[in-house]
């Protein structure tokens, strides 16, 4: 979305006193059942969990509090670890897409750090180490374009609506909700500014945080009644903080689904991919990629995920497609000729005519019709009588029932993801097996000289060329 469109959207939202949807479809598939929500409260700067509310967002949450989060003893996280694992096992048993709801990006960072701290921690129990890898799997999945397993409420809302305030203010989930779910009779801008006075990044309010910090000193002083009272008060305050965060998450989730958009028709492949990836990672401890073949695979996987997401967006959402059209990535064209010597067999050539000015096609560009029935490669592009003509050789969908007919007018898009991962895996396996020193060793050095430097190879080369 460019700045003009965004500005217009914000002007409209500001005037109407509520957020303006900017998509025609949801980019997130319907919540599966069950769903697991996580609302942590962290210790500022330490990024350590001091409280966490979690569980099924449609029921009451479980809350874990840690009066001394800097202690090495992390036994209090066992309850969370067990609940997370129960959820993972349940979705794995049902071969379902897992869906984790978190309020904002800070919450995901806390979850990711839980992963870093416990996955390989030899002092931790097996269940905490398992929690570690599962937390890392959640964070890892969130990095994939179009993923469907991790819903970060603030971000998913921002991808669907524009508010009537400056974008930087949308970063505060409370301020964002002031526009998405406005309070009747109140100016959302005012409500948003009020909300923004209280942090919404998974930390306690300042005064409470200061109080808890003070109480911790008392709580550490032993086992007497003063220390016990201090611990009790810390736990109460942390519980309240976590429940507030939980409520914020639920409100955001409700507000999101209340947008009432239809589900994007292209989400199926995204759900399948996300399910495959996340279930695999949630069920085993994997080291992060660090060697050339695994890093290359990681980059390829992300590129493929981005292709899929882009394709789903362009095909599934009218607004996104309109923007793609302006960049020449989607084009409205009429079929003016079909050449298929043998029915339902290759070769099959389709000539498209478009008057769209902006096109991003050239020889070799892969195009797919918006319905995803046929796909082809541009063989030739030429201009005639104020229009552009494209000759496509169909690479998919040559069956008689699928080949378009002359006169068909439809959108064609250049987002045609190809799943080459199986072949790539073979390539990367071969690369790993061969382990070229140039790739796997560092600092290879030439082994000196050989042959006869007395031969002037440039003279040889010139003779060869002259010989031609």
């Amino acid at each position, binding site marked *: 979305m460019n700045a003009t469109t965004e500005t217009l959207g914000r002007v409209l939202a500001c005037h109407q006193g509520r957020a303006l949807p900017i998509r025609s479809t949801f980019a997130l598939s319907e919540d599966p059942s069950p769903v697991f929500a996580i609302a942590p409260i962290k210790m500022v700067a330490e990024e350590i969990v001091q409280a966490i509310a979690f569980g099924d967002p449609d029921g009451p949450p479980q809350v874990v509090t840690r009066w001394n989060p800097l202690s090495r003893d992390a036994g209090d996280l066992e309850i969370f670890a067990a609940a997370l694992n129960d959820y993972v096992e349940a979705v794995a048993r049902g071969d379902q897409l897992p869906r984790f709801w978190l309020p904002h990006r800070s919450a995901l960072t806390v979850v990711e750090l839980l992963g870093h701290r416990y996955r390989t921690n030899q002092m931790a129990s097996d269940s905490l180490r398992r929690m570690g890898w599962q937390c890392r799997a959640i964070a890892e999945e969130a990095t994939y374009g179009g993923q469907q397993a991790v819903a970060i409420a603030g971000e998913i809302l921002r991808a669907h609506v524009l508010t009537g305030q400056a974008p930087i203010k949308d970063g505060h989930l409370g301020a964002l909700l002031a526009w998405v779910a406005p309070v009747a009779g109140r100016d959302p801008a005012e409500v948003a500014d009020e909300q923004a006075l209280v942090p919404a990044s998974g930390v306690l309010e300042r005064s409470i945080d200061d109080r808890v910090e003070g109480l911790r000193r008392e709580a550490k002083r032993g086992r007497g009644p003063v220390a016990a009272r201090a611990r009790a008060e810390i736990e109460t305050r942390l519980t309240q903080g976590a429940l507030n965060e939980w409520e914020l998450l639920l409100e955001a989730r409700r507000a999101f689904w209340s947008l009432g958009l239809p589900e994007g028709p292209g989400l199926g492949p995204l759900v399948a991919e996300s399910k495959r990836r996340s279930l695999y990672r949630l069920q085993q401890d994997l080291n992060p990629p660090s060697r050339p073949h695994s890093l290359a695979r990681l980059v390829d996987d992300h590129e493929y995920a981005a292709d899929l997401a882009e394709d789903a967006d362009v095909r599934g959402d009218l607004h996104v497609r309109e923007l793609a059209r302006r960049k020449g990535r989607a084009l409205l064209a009429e079929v003016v000729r079909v050449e298929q010597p043998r029915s339902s067999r290759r070769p099959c050539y389709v000539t498209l005519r478009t008057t769209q000015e902006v096109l991003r096609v050239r020889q070799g560009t892969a195009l797919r019709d918006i319905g995803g029935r046929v796909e082809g490669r541009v063989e030739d592009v030429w201009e005639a009588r104020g229009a552009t003509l494209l000759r496509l050789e169909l690479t998919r969908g040559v069956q008689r029932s699928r080949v378009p007919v002359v006169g068909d007018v439809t959108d064609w898009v250049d987002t045609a993801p190809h799943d080459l991962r199986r072949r790539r895996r073979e*390539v990367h396996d071969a690369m790993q097996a061969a382990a070229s020193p140039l790739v796997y060793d560092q600092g290879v050095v030439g082994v000196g000289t050989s042959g006869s430097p007395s031969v002037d*190879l440039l003279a040889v080369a010139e003779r060869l060329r002259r010989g031609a």
Partner: protein
Amino acid sequence: MSQTVTTVSVVARDRDVRRRVLETVLQETHPAVVVDSPPGAGKTHLVETVVATAAHHLRMHVGVIAPRVEQVHDLVRRLRQGHPFLPVQLLHARGRLPDPDILADPGVVSVDRPANLRRGPGVVVTTAAKLAFSVPDLQAGQFDLLVCDESYQLPWKDLAPVLHLAHRHLLVGDPGQLRPIVRGDLARYEAARHKMHWAAPRELLRQNPNLPRLQLPATWRLPQDTVELVQPSFYPDLSFASAVALADRQLGFGAAGIGDPVDAALDQLAAGATLVGLLLPARPLEVDEVDDEVAELAAHVVARLLERAATWVGVRQLTERDIGYVDAHVASNARVRARLRAAGVGPATMTTTPEIWQGSQRPMMVAKHTLSGLARLDGFALDPGRLCVMTSRHQLGVILVGRDGVAAALERHQHDTAERPSGTEDAQWAGWRAHHRLWTALDTMGRLIRI
């Protein structure tokens, strides 16, 4: 006189480096050699020379790869023209047959399955992607030498899988042009021990700093005037000079102009300037907003070149095919195309983005300045590679069209110091500095003509 002497010494230096490349690659036994090349330095010629010498003289089985199919086809044609007796095999994707002229060439064997490749002295040409996908069907050390042309356009992740196929490697490329595009979490990739998203030669040299790195010292495309503007801005670490004589790069006109600013710009070119800016008054625009007036101006410049019978003095009168237009945005290119048609200029005048222009040249170019009309500069606009490509496609000259106000935008620009991943090179700063340097130089030299 002095220009001739300079040219002669540049040519001599260029020969020395080429000889050194041949020695380093073919007579010494370094596992890899990187050759940095300025624009128009004859990279492909060098590749041809090395390949022919290796295959023909040293009886080697040579693999040659390039990032794009078009580049591969061009390589095959060049090899066939220069060395008609060299056995050439073209390994192509099953769904993408070679161009008809190549298919028709009896000297080229086209195969789509790696198993069908013949061993022995000769050359196999293919894309990096096709070769990578063929890896499971090939053997380690399949080639005596693997040459990668336009290697700076290839991410390391796409070259690394094929390196074990040969014992020696030559990577040739232009370090100043656009970097390969890799999508995903770049901060994470940057933090990794292996930078799989970096341009292949950069990562190869980072990991293996002792490998020989040679630099071609001459451009056979750009006139010295352009070199003096482009080299300090875009190639601070690669010194080069023009190998062509001034007299061989003269633009003339068969007809006088009407004396408007467009003619003033053209006349500057005829007087020896090779890089001139032609500017409309400042007007802020969106990044992806099409600037109709600039499109009109660009088309007007092309049309005027043709109307005034622009001539490459001593060579030929320029035709539509001899002029190109480059613009960073697809929509803007489309508008210029439409304006060109309205002005009677046909499709032979190629109008496209810098990404596609890489590796091509025209006697005359018109380019839309990437910062034209921008109130706020972003990484895309500031990318030094993009402007570098745009200002280094011409043999005679380039006119930069756009809006005035670039200097102010550069001054006003607030540098982002947050987004660049820790410890990585600051490409945006490099871009800003390159833009600033070029624009200041053009302004100081009186090369910016305001309408």
